[in-house]
């Protein structure tokens, strides 16, 4: 077996050192009835690199690759161009095969990167501080809700109808077990997000209001009034960002007064990967830092006075607090955080602003083109790079038909909200810098045909 260095002679010599007659002697504590006397039946034996490559390549070929067709899917995962150096750098063995930086003297690479990442994220979200990442946006969103409960000692969360349904689903699942009360609803095909409705519902029992920015239909609401209304009732405002590139073009939630801002960082550096691994972003106001979940990297100095970095405030975490921890999260998403951070460094202020502008204008042009079609109505006049169309037919079969023609047209709301009859004709279309004008034209023509 190519990954196992011990030879038969090594094994014999080592058994002699141990004083065991055979390998079986080392497994004596396994009850007789549970010992397997040979390789498990029904599974193949070892395979060469070439054989594994053949098998997996054949599986990979059965999938329609986003980059090979006109592609317009978003709804929480976005296709952006990732510079080649990002993937090259994260594959350096010292990053790829390192562990959580428990020994800071020999993990300054990871630690400094995390400190840079935390700063980039905090600035992007408009928060005072940010942690070293969560699993993904959906789990970060739930962690924010539980954190709000710890801070406010209240259990009711008002969830905007514009929050990604999977995020709602995750929160609902967890709340069933923790006793949090969530008020949720499916969205309606309106031009504006449900901000006014949320403001009207905040009361003295409200722990937090959770709002997505831009929301699941692509709409962008001003959060300032909502933040002010939350403050009056001493509830926290949690903003969820699933498309961080948007923050290169629109005001940050933190700047508008959000207390906690969480998000999905997949857009930058990570790639689609069929949904994971992704990287959760988590930022908040400084005063709540001890209630934050997840790992935090902090600056300090070494015995010679040199600047260095360590994991800090770890008493919040499960390995120390056990049942009193702020969260049970342990491993985070370090390598994805690194990819995010490298991509951000390559872009810088100028690059992110430019990328965001290109996304927005391309999407705007695409929305104008598609809205001209018979049987297509633009629901969302204000958006960043993702907008919702109302078709004259149920959108789900339309998406399937277009996929058969080699066009990945967007996400049908019927897939996300199978139980909402009013949403079945909705189609969410994302347009990033990776979509060409020809791609948009191909989509427009195919849509026109299918809807005729």
């Amino acid at each position, binding site marked *: 077996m190519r990954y196992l260095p011990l030879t038969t002679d090594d094994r014999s010599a080592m058994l002699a050192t141990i004083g065991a007659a055979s390998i079986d002697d080392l497994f004596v504590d396994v009850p007789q009835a549970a010992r397997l006397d040979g390789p498990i039946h029904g599974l193949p034996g070892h395979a060469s690199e070439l054989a594994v490559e053949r098998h997996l390549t054949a599986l990979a070929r059965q999938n329609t690759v986003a980059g090979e067709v006109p592609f317009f899917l978003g709804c929480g995962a976005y296709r952006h161009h990732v510079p080649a150096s990002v993937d090259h750098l994260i594959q350096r063995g010292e990053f790829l095969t390192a562990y959580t930086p428990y020994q800071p003297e020999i993990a300054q690479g990871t630690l400094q990167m995390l400190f840079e990442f935390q700063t980039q994220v905090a600035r992007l979200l408009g928060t005072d501080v940010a942690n070293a990442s969560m699993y993904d946006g959906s789990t970060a969103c739930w962690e924010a809700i539980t954190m709000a409960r710890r801070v406010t000692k209240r259990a009711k969360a008002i969830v905007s109808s514009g929050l990604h349904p999977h995020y709602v689903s995750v929160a609902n699942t967890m709340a069933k077990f923790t006793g949090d009360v969530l008020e949720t609803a499916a969205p309606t095909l309106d031009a504006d997000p449900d901000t006014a409705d949320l403001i009207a519902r905040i009361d003295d029992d409200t722990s937090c209001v959770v709002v997505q920015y831009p929301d699941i239909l692509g709409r962008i609401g001003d959060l300032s009034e909502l933040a002010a209304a939350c403050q009056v009732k001493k509830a926290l405002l949690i903003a969820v960002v699933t498309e961080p590139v948007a923050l290169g073009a629109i005001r940050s939630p933190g700047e508008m007064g959000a207390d906690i801002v969480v998000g999905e960082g997949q857009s930058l550096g990570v790639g689609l990967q069929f949904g994971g691994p992704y990287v959760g972003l988590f930022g908040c106001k400084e005063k709540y830092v*001890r209630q934050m979940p997840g790992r935090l990297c902090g600056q300090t100095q070494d015995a010679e006075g040199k600047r260095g970095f360590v994991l800090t405030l*770890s*008493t919040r975490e499960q390995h*120390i*607090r056990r049942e*009193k921890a702020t969260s049970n999260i342990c491993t985070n998403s370090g390598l994805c955080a690194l990819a995010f951070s490298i991509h951000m460094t390559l872009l810088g202020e100028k690059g992110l602003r430019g990328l965001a502008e290109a996304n927005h204008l391309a999407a705007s042009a695409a929305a104008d083109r598609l809205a001209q079609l018979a049987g297509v109505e633009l629901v969302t006049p204000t958006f960043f790079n993702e907008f919702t169309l109302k078709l004259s037919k149920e959108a789900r079969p339309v998406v399937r038909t277009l996929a058969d023609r080699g066009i990945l047209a967007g996400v049908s709301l019927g897939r996300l909200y199978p139980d909402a009859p009013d949403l079945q004709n909705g189609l969410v279309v994302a347009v990033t810098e990776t979509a060409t004008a020809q791609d948009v034209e191909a989509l427009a023509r195919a849509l026109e045909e299918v809807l005729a």
Partner: protein
Amino acid sequence: MSRHYTSDHEWIDVDGDGATVGITDYAQGQLGDIVFVEVPDEGREVAKGGEAAVVESVKAASDVYAPVSGTVTQGNPALVDDPSLVNSDPEGEGWFFKLRLTHPSELEGLMDEAAYKEFVSGL
């Protein structure tokens, strides 16, 4: 004014129906550098043996229990800015909170200084 000790390494100074609570020099020595202290808010009711405060070192967090039941009259504001007071002066400036006793009779089971010293030497 009298001082009592618990087997969980808290001390309590009693003055009439008021009292001051902290952790002992032995306890701070075991914890190492204190980096954060969470003291209870004024008005909180604490029960004898119940959690009243949290003290954190870099690698450990410990609950501090109320030696007796009572109502918190004040948490030590100085510890927020300078938790190291618990290391430098645990049984003075590094006090945790002040209480108004509910059941002064609860003091009876606690150790005096000599008994606590003997208790610690046996650890």
